[in-house]
């Protein structure tokens, strides 16, 4: 890892020695934890998750993680603490755990719409707070995550988080103002992709291909195209042109997409989700 060392109460320097806690054990928290486990970054025994009921916690225990109903225990046992409650529950939870928060803690909020300003107001002033927006494919190590740091968090915390989460996919530090945009682009964005994949497959079924096969091929097509974008670094417009032989099948199909104003519709979707994220944050 880069630069200096991360000081924790236990003197842990490596992510592997980190004790990681989750306050809230819902889908997003579970996805992140599963991703970390699969990547081998953190042993299950080092993960402690709390939730009000056992409903969500069963799955965690099955993976070998420790669980509790006591949020304070998570703070006492962990150095890196992910906050993953529902937004309306968070203020109460912060009030509850505040006494146990110390200078060794790194608090990372996954809670949609709750700003760093709010978090810092409800926690001790010097607390190292960061805000993370992941997406679901973290589960399969192909996530897209952005995080922003609060005033108490330094380069070391940012580097630790980035290094830890890069095992789950792409992880970039951004200004806080990008977080809602990330929601519109990639948080919700995976749903747009599922919709597109479904439509691709449906087109194939209409043309006579069995649905299961069509679905798998649709997914692989998206995966392959995305991989080419990431590995070649070429502009998608150029990659698109590379596939279009003059007068061929692809350009005919693309014309249909342009007629349907697909581009504008997608832009509308990203805009709508981003705006909704902003609106919800103000609630």
């Amino acid at each position: 890892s880069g630069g200096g060392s991360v000081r924790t109460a236990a003197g842990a320097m490596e992510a592997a020695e980190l004790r990681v806690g989750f306050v809230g054990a819902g889908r997003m928290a579970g996805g992140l934890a599963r991703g970390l486990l699969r990547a081998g970054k953190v042993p299950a025994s080092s993960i402690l998750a709390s939730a009000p009921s056992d409903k969500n916690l069963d799955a965690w225990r099955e993976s070998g993680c420790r669980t509790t109903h006591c949020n304070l225990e998570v703070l006492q046992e962990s150095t890196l603490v992910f906050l993953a409650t529902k937004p309306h529950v968070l203020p109460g939870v912060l009030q509850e755990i505040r006494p146990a928060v110390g200078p060794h803690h790194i608090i990372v909020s996954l809670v949609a719409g709750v700003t760093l300003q709010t978090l810092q107001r409800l926690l001790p002033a010097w607390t190292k707070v960061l805000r993370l927006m992941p997406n679901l494919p973290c589960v399969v190590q192909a996530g897209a995550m952005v995080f922003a740091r609060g005033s108490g968090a330094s380069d070391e915390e940012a580097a630790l988080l980035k290094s830890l989460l890069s095992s789950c996919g792409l992880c970039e530090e951004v200004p806080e103002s990008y977080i809602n945009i990330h929601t519109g682009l990639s948080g919700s964005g995976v749903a747009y992709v599922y919709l597109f994949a479904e439509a691709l497959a449906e087109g194939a079924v209409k043309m006579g291909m069995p649905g299961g096969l069509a679905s798998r091929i649709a997914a692989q097509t998206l995966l392959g195209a995305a991989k080419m974008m990431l590995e070649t670094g070429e502009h998608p417009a150029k990659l698109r042109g590379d596939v279009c032989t003059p007068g061929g099948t692809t350009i005919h199909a693309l014309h249909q997409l342009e007629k349907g104003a697909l581009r504008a519709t997608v832009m509308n979707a990203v805009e709508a989700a981003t705006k909704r994220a902003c609106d919800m944050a103000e609630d």
Partner: protein
Amino acid sequence: LQKIGVNFTVSNKDTVKSSDVLFLAVKPPIIPFILDEVGPDIEARHIVVSCAAGVTISSIEKKLSTFCPTPKVIRCMTNTPVIVREGATVYATGTHADVEDGKLLEQLMASVGFCTEVEEDLIDAVTGLSGSGPAYAFTALDALADGGVKMGLPRRLAVRLGAQALLGAAKMLLESEQHPGQLKDNVCSPGGATIHALHFLESGGFRSLLINAVEASCIRTRELQHLADQETISPAAIKKTLLDKVKLESPSLSVASASKVSLFTNKSPSSKKN
């Protein structure tokens, strides 16, 4: 033309006799008549260049072969900005045109813009794109100027700026290795004015409209070509005075239209002839 020192004559035959490279620049329906008229005067040295949309090399060669065994024919598609030496020209060489003949034409047309050789079957697509293209650009420029005027610019300035913007963008693209998509991205700062504007263009299906336009122009060119191949020409397409002239110089010529009024009768126009 005479003002800039070009020799002028009313005789097609004279033009042919005193030329080596002969540009046929009449409207497509007239081409067959011109070929019949000047055919006898075409010699081995002549390079016949047709700029007529939709008129195939083989149709020209067929017409001329009755007069000349190996006519050199080149088919060309250019566009109006040749006037300002920024034309876009393509050409396809006929059966008996040599490589040097093509290169000669290319040299001539390259002096007024971009010129390259293509396979003949692409010429309709070129018509749709760069043949008609200036009209799309003029339409866009008119609308852009309207936008400028709406937002407070005087018309003349709006037109000047719009034209310069397109000129500059085109020049950047021609001089750049980058994809136009990348060049577009370079102009769009995050959350800025340009990306907001582009969203409007996309919502309106701007891209598909342009694709549709190129396609429509290309398809129409092919339709016109079919009509020409069948030599189905309505009298309205042929100006009476021109045909009278042709008739005077080539008494053997007859119109290939079956059901129409014959325009070559000495009787009054109201009497019909089969």
